[in-house]
């Protein structure tokens, strides 16, 4: 094994120590987070490794799978294709931000009730996309749901129950707009 002359010790953060860093402040699930990052730091790595929120997953390297979906200023985006610096001064919401004051969101409840998940790996991204869809359209048709989640791949469920879960969540929201799970 060829070894470098440096002592072996892990870095303090994601970045290599000598690279230039920029300070950013991002509001994540309502809490302001301030950190120094390399410009190339991807938002998904910032969330997972700097902020420590590992619910946002990485399923690909070509921006296809949507496992990394978060809301950036309210819109669902693929956080593997956004630089952390681009989120500077902005609002990010992750799957960890869906449950508010110990109450699951309608989407979270519905995913369990309709068996909309199996291995759970696509689930956070899927739920973030669903949440954004229902905020715009609380009563989507099946084709509308399917089109809305076309950027979120699931290998386990065959989508049938995901579609059901999203439609169920919409109904829950309409039935009880302020109650538990009332928000998307």
């Amino acid at each position, binding site marked *: 094994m060829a070894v*470098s002359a440096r002592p072996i010790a*892990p870095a303090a953060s994601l970045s290599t120590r000598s690279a230039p860093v920029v300070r950013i402040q991002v509001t994540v699930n309502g809490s302001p987070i301030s950190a120094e990052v390399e410009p*190339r730091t991807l938002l998904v790595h910032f969330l997972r490794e700097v902020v420590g929120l590992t619910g946002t997953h990485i399923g690909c390297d070509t921006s296809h799978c949507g496992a990394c979906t978060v809301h950036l200023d309210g819109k669902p985006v693929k956080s593997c294709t956004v630089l952390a610096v681009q989120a500077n001064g902005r609002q990010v919401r992750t799957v960890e931000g869906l449950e508010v004051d110990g109450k699951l969101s309608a989407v979270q409840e519905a995913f369990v009730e309709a068996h909309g998940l199996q291995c759970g790996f696509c689930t956070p991204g899927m739920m973030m996309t669903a949440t954004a869809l229902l905020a715009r359209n609380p009563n989507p048709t099946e084709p509308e749901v399917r089109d809305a989640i076309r950027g979120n791949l699931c290998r386990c469920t065959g989508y*049938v129950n995901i579609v059901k879960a999203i439609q169920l969540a919409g109904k829950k929201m309409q039935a009880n707009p302020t109650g538990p799970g009332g928000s998307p």
Partner: protein
Amino acid sequence: MSAEAPHVKGGLGQSILRKEDARFIRGKGNYVDDIKLPGMLYLDITRSPYAHAKITAIRTEKALKVPGVLAVITGKDLAAANLAWMPTLMSDKQMVLPTDTVMYQAQEVAAVVADSRYAAADGAAAVEVDYEPLPVVTNPFKALEPGAPVIRTDRKEQSNHIWHWETGDKAGTEEAFRSAEVVVGQDLYIPRIHVSSMETCGCIAHMDSVSGRFTIYMTTQAPHAIRTVYALVTGLPEQNIRVVSPDIGGGFGGKVPVYPGYVLASVASIKTGHPVKWVEDRSENLQADSFARDYHIHAEVAARKDGTVTALKVKTLADHGYTDAAANPSKFPAGLFHIITGSYPFAKAFVEVDAAYTNKPPGGIAYRCSFRVTEAVYTIERMMDILAHRLKVDPAELRLKNFIPPDAFPYKSALGWTYDSGNYAGALKKAMEIIDYAGLRREQAEKRRRGELMGIGISSFTEIVGAGPSHTFDILGLKMFDSAEVRIHPTGKVIARFGTKSQGQGHETTYAQILAEELGIPADDIRVEEGDTDTAPYGLGTYASRSTPTAGAAASMAARKIREKAKKIAAHLLEVSPDDIEWKDYAFRVKGVPTKSKTMQDVAFAAYTNHPQGTEAGLEAVDYYDPPNMTYPFGSYICVVDIDKETGQVKVRRFVAVDDCGTIINPMIVDGQIHGGLTMGFAPALLEEIQYDENGNIHGGSFMEYLVPTAVETPHWETAKTVTPSPHHPIGAKGVGESATVGAPPAIANAVVDALQPYGVEHIDIPIHPWKVWQIIHAGAPKTG
């Protein structure tokens, strides 16, 4: 279930919600990349751009200068520790890192260890390697031609031929073909595909040099087998090895093998004393992890004029890539391919398979199926349609005429399998009724008159799952039993541990349901754990739909052992003889006086507070279940497609799946498994494939080109069931995770070929891309008739 019928909360047959979901919907799953250990380092891999080349130099200086890079590992380093090669399950060997020759594009060439993920990536990009390209062979037929460049020069055979395997009655089959009234034959190629679980593979290896404890968190479907293999290969004492399989983001067979990355992270941790994380990218996953299929099949069916099938003959060339690393624990090199007689009573059959090396990564893992069962089912179900076409009979009619009848079970097939139970006509008739088969045929006739293309395809598959009986199945000698350890606490709550490992199948829920049923304890009170070799009983893991047939059976058997003991305690509590006690309606009852009873919870408390003299305290049992036979799930699928004549695009309009997996533990979960399986059957039928050009360059090596279905083209699956319990499984269950992946592709292919009947085609190789359909349509004017 009627409200009156006695039942236990969460028992068999109930669609209870999943216990595991609570963490997943909160983003609190614990997948391998979520784990962060103090002092953890990162490993990244430099890979070969060539499919076949001599490595003339590896220069690490630049990489070592990258800030944060700590070490570079090459094949030479591993060779010094005798770790450059590792054994495969098929008595072949596989490189961890090459010392001199790379044999496929994207093969690992060097590993870079750094203090951050980003530095490791920079380091891997900075390793300089000089290659001298060698001639490339990617076509297995060419690989076997005389004079083809030998890929595995390390083998004494000096040939690309790996093995020949045959089974069945060769002479009898030939004879049956000679006297056959009708013979149909077809070449079928089933291309390479990749499981592409949404989570890629990865691990964190940690050698604690002080305690000598080696812990590896690993995306593996078979943690115990890995522990033993590690012990055998590295010489580390097995009690010091702990394999933890945390939450797994889908496996489907792709997380059975040991990949070089795992070994490299282990070596790096042993060398540095730090935990080392390796998590592959999607592209690495698609380009270098084991593949499925790649079978070139020639099949022939002999039949009588009335359509009765008589004999089957199959000759296959299997492309294994540069090593036979098939994840196949059977004693048959082509796995369970000889289930190929399917749902039909062929009197004679003969199957032969040859395997070849090519300049591709290892093939031969499953893709959500038992070993080579998909290849078998696809072949026979396509052949049945070709026969129907040739005889001008309806494919449903041909199947109904031929099915093995329900009273023939247990049925011994011509190739030696003993099918446990089945009612094939029942499933097909149910599917035909749901989809209105007759109505569809009328609609099709109408459309054909108008020149529109609509097709109906059937697949009536027989699966073989639940590996398996120890006489036939082992992993490097480890027999393929599985295990359950069940412990009832004083308050009547249960912890149960298993040798399997869920990757999304919902074991935490379904095993609890089996135990609830057997113990009369609500499923909510039962905690299920898997995946930590320090705590779980020894088992062979989860793949090939084996969990329910093996560990699920072990759960029942362990619970029944507990009941035996509990009965004595109940008798003690009820002050009667154990012979006067029966287990009925989820309680121990005095025979004839059913109101005098004790629940399992009563007994559990007594087992710790008031156990009878001469009986041990406590209430627990372990069972290692070695199944007497495989289970044989089956079903009939019917698919309807519409084809756009101008573009060749195929749209699946309807798909009805009638499955029979024996006793159903949780209907909601079973349906979910079938939906997912159907989608993974749909995918290779219409979208997914990995190709290599003549230089060995991969096409389909990222999600840009490897087209996993989205929600838009995935059909709205319609499911239904028949229930034919397995006679030898304790609760009659058969395993269901893969039936649909196996059954779906021929239904879709048959539907497309059926739609194209006016053009006289009998076969199109999958995946059926629009251009293939367009070429057929535009090759010539439609024939009449």
